[in-house]
Structure formats: C-alpha cells, structure tokens
C-alpha cells in the first residue's frame, strides 16, 4: 500500500503519475506482475519449429529462452548460468544441441539439466568440485509454459490458472479468431524503443477514442472514425480487453482533421486495401495482461510485445505473421498495409510521439494524476467514447500492486 499511497480517492478514474515514473513501483511490478501469476507472451511455436531451436526473449525485463526440447516439448528457461550468472545464450535465435556457458563451460541440456562440468574431479586428484556439490540441484530456472493455437506463454507462478481461463471467454474468442489453429507463418519483425512507460503503451490500445482524434491518417481514409460500429469487451478482472471496430472507408467531413488542407486521396490505395478475413469488424485489438497486444488491423496481424525497459522506456517487438495457407495476394496485402505500423508506421508514429510527451509530462509533475472520466464503469461498451478498459486495467493493477 505504501508504495502507491497517493492513489486519489476517485479510484481507477485517476492514475497517479508515480506509476509511470517511480523506480520502486517499477521494481514491484517486475516482482508482482511479471514474476507473479501472469501468462507472459514469449513467442510463436513456429519460431522454434524443430528440437533445439531457440529464441531469446523477455518476461518483464528478465531475459528468458524459449526452446523446443528433444521430445518436441516447448520449455522456457531464465537465460542465466546457475554457476556465476553469465547468460548461456547470446544469440537472439538459433539452433543448439546443448546450452554451454562460455565462462566455465557448464553445459545444460535442452531440458535444462546441468549435464557437463569441466574438471569436475580436478586434475591428478587435485581440486575439482566439492564432494557435496549436487549437479541435479543446479539446473536452469524453468518457467511454466502454456500454448494456444501456436502462441506460447510463460509464467513464473506455479499456481496461475490455465491460459484459457486466464483469458476468459470473450477475450479467448477474439484470440481464437486470429490464432484459429491454422499454421502461422512469421513474415518479419519490427522493433523500436519508445520513451514511455510500458503501461502507457498498453493503455493506448485500450483507448478507442484517441484514434479518431490523433490518427489523422485513419480518419482521412475512413479506417477509424468516432462514429463507426464498435465493440469493447473487458474480461471480468479488468485486466484484458479487446476493441473491435468496423471501418467504413468513407471520408467524413465532420471528422476531418484540421491539418488536412486539400482533399487527400491516395494515388495508390493498395496500402489500405482490405480483404475481409473475419466475420465482423475490420480490426480487433486485444491487450492481454500484462504486456501483449494481439493486433488485427485490416489484414495486418501482429504479436506486439511490450518489454519494460526502466520506468521511462519500453521496447516494442512486432512479430508480423500470416497463415501458411495465405495466397500470394494476401501476403502482398499484409506487407503493404504494414506501412501503417511500426517505427515508420503512418499511424504508429503518432502514438510513439504522444506516449513520449505523456511520459515527459508525468515526469514533470510527479504529484499529478491522469484523469479517466470518459464514460462509466470498467466493463464492455458498444461505442468508442469511453475509457472503461483503461479503468479496468488499473482496477486490476491495484489489486496486484497494493
């Protein structure tokens, strides 16, 4: 309680600036949220397709390795030699038979067992490991793993509920809409470091009504308007949400941003040309507690992992994917529409900039609080003019953090 003592009496209708800037709150988040009872996205199963394939990633700010073991099972280990802390894995991805620490050559099997120790019995009977040393007690630190239709999650907690129950029925149904069991195909990665607390990035995708005000590109081409058909679903705890929206692709003079001078028509509309893939909504953007964004915007599909990097920054990794069964035409759409997203995205740049100035504003006024007074409650809505999903997020955040 003491850490966030100044939470205003309005509850989740206010967010104290401290939660974005305070380093002790940040440290508590690592302990209680990321090392706590949460399922953390670590990768797609197809990225580690064969036994020995590995991928280096993060749970919160803790470096972990996702690897497929000899039996084909997915495992997640902390990337740390149990001897003297050196990271056993230095490449972002690759293929190994065993993980060997370069420092003193301790080696670990794909199952995490400590299998090799040089000079264990010394040289000529002198030195070597102590008689009381028990290698079986020094395997890699292992996390629990859950998989759903090709997406892989890990948890430090042994008592976290099954992933499906964790997501809840409404979020699960939208998750399954994209990850529906078809074989996924990774089409590329984008990564950038944004000068904003990780929660500001998550909130951004729970905030439906900034899109039609900030993102002139969306508004100009009728991809996201304040008046379009909308569905917001928040899980029972408030921790996950989905924003479903249906683009009209019509320009609306009332909504038209002041910055647009003459009428802006695309000379080549292929960067927004959409082909319907799912039964309703042209976009469904999920936020899964704590730090995953599952993005379906027109034909772009991406797992957007938001890695905390100190209170003042986060690193966003976008793993864009499609399906193995995609036609060349569908792949071309996904690749061209990606122009709107990522570090050079015609829409994402707006967010990067706004999040950075929101962080700077919070830094400059540490005793202040953000105001979430749009709409009511912390639950579902059928319109965009609400901050209910952000309030839900902080309602749950407080139960974990206080």
């Amino acid at each position, binding site marked *: 309680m003491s850490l966030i003592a100044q939470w205003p009496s309005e509850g989740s209708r206010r967010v104290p600036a401290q939660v974005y800037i305070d380093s002790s709150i940040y440290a508590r988040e690592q302990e209680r949220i990321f090392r706590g009872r949460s399922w953390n996205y670590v990768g797609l199963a197809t990225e580690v397709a064969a036994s020995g394939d590995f991928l280096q990633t993060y749970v919160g700010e803790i470096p972990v390795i996702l690897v497929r073991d000899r039996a084909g099972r997915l495992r997640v280990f902390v990337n740390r030699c149990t001897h003297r802390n050196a990271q056993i894995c230095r490449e972002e991805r690759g293929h190994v038979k065993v993980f060997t620490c370069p420092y003193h050559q301790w080696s670990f099997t794909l199952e995490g067992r400590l299998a090799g120790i040089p000079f264990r019995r010394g040289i000529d009977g002198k030195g070597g490991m102590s008689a009381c040393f028990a290698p079986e007690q020094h395997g890699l630190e292992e996390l629990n793993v859950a998989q759903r239709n090709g997406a892989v999650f890990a948890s430090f907690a042994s008592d976290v509920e099954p992933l499906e129950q964790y997501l809840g029925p409404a979020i699960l149904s939208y998750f399954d809409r994209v990850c529906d069991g078809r074989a996924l195909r990774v089409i*590329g990665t*984008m990564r*950038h470091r944004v000068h904003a607390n990780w929660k500001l990035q998550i909130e951004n995708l729970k905030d439906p009504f900034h899109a039609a005000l900030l993102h002139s590109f969306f508004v100009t081409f009728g991809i996201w308007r304040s008046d379009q058909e909308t569905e917001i679903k928040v899980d029972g705890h408030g921790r996950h949400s989905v924003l479903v929206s249906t683009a009209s692709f019509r320009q609306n003079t009332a909504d038209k941003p002041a*910055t647009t*001078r003459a009428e802006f028509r695309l000379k*080549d509309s*292929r960067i927004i040309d959409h082909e319907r893939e799912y039964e309703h909504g042209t976009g469904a953007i999920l936020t899964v507690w704590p730090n995953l964004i599952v993005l379906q915007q027109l034909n772009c599909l991406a797992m957007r992992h938001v890695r905390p990097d100190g209170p003042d920054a986060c690193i966003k990794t976008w793993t*864009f994917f499609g399906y193995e069964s995609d036609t060349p035409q569908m792949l071309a759409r996904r690749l061209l529409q990606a122009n709107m997203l990522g570090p*050079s995205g015609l829409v994402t740049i707006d967010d990067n900039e706004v999040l950075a100035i929101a962080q700077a504003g919070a830094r400059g006024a540490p005793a202040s609080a953000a105001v979430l007074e749009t709409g009511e409650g912390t639950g579902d809505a059928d319109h965009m003019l609400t901050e209910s999903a952000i309030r839900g997020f902080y309602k749950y955040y407080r139960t974990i953090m206080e």
Partner: protein
Amino acid sequence: MPAQSELYQLAADVELLFTTYCETLDDAAIERWPDFFASESRYRITTRDNLERNLPLSLVLCEGVGMLRDRARALQETVMYRRRFQRRLMSGIRLETADGIDGSGVKVRASFLVCESMGDGPTQLLVSGRSQDIVVREGDSLKFKQRLCVIDSTVIPDSLVFPL
C-alpha cells in the same frame, strides 16, 4: 563495356544523385523525395535481421512512385511528430555493374549513417546501414529504380519518421 572516361563520368553522376538526395531530405523537403525515383520503382527499408532470415516484411515499402507520393504527403499532412533535424552521411558509393544505365539500370552499393537532433537533446545516431540500389537514366537525370535500405540494428531508437 563503357570506356574508362565514361565510367568515371557515371560514377560522378551517381555520387551527385546521392548527394542531392541526402541534401533534399536533410532540408526536410519531403515533397521532392518522390522526384528522385523512376516511375516504375520500388523503395524498401528493412533490417539486416529480416533480410538474413529471408522474411519479406519491410519497415517501409513503396511499390511505384504513387506510393512514394502518398507517403510524402501523409508525412506532411496526417502524421503527428515533433520537429526534428536529420543529417545523412552516405559513403562507399560503388557501382557494382557498369552497363545498363539507359536500360535495366546499374547496381550501386553504399553505406549510410543518419543522425537526428530533436528538441533540446543532443544529436543522436538514428540508424546505420547499407543500401543496395538500382539507378537508371530517365531523360537527362539519374533516378532510383530500386532503393533498398538495410538497417544494421534490430531495434530503432523511437521512430524513423523520414525516408532513408
């Protein structure tokens, strides 16, 4: 095979193309950026990581000069960003092929560094990388028929607002 003097002239012309290209973007004259491209052209920014893994995703992908003009206009009119100043350094400009400037084009490789200054912060290195381009003659000027920029790092510091 062109004569040695013609090759020197071509190398000088290509270098001038790169110099004026950088100058134009450093001056933030984004509306003139598409003028450096042939009508049938392809512009792409990706990372070394994506390229090495044979993954087709790009950070920026423009197929044809229409898409270049759309991006230039969007950056001027619809995208919100803080004012920033950029400085491009391109070096090691080398013609990989000598023939074809009036036909399929000549292949040109180069290295780039882009620095950025914003607000009251110091100048920072935004990206480094290499380019693999195809240059053709259109009328009496040289244009990019292909420009592929491959960024060395996997992580971009913040946003890459303007083209490389």
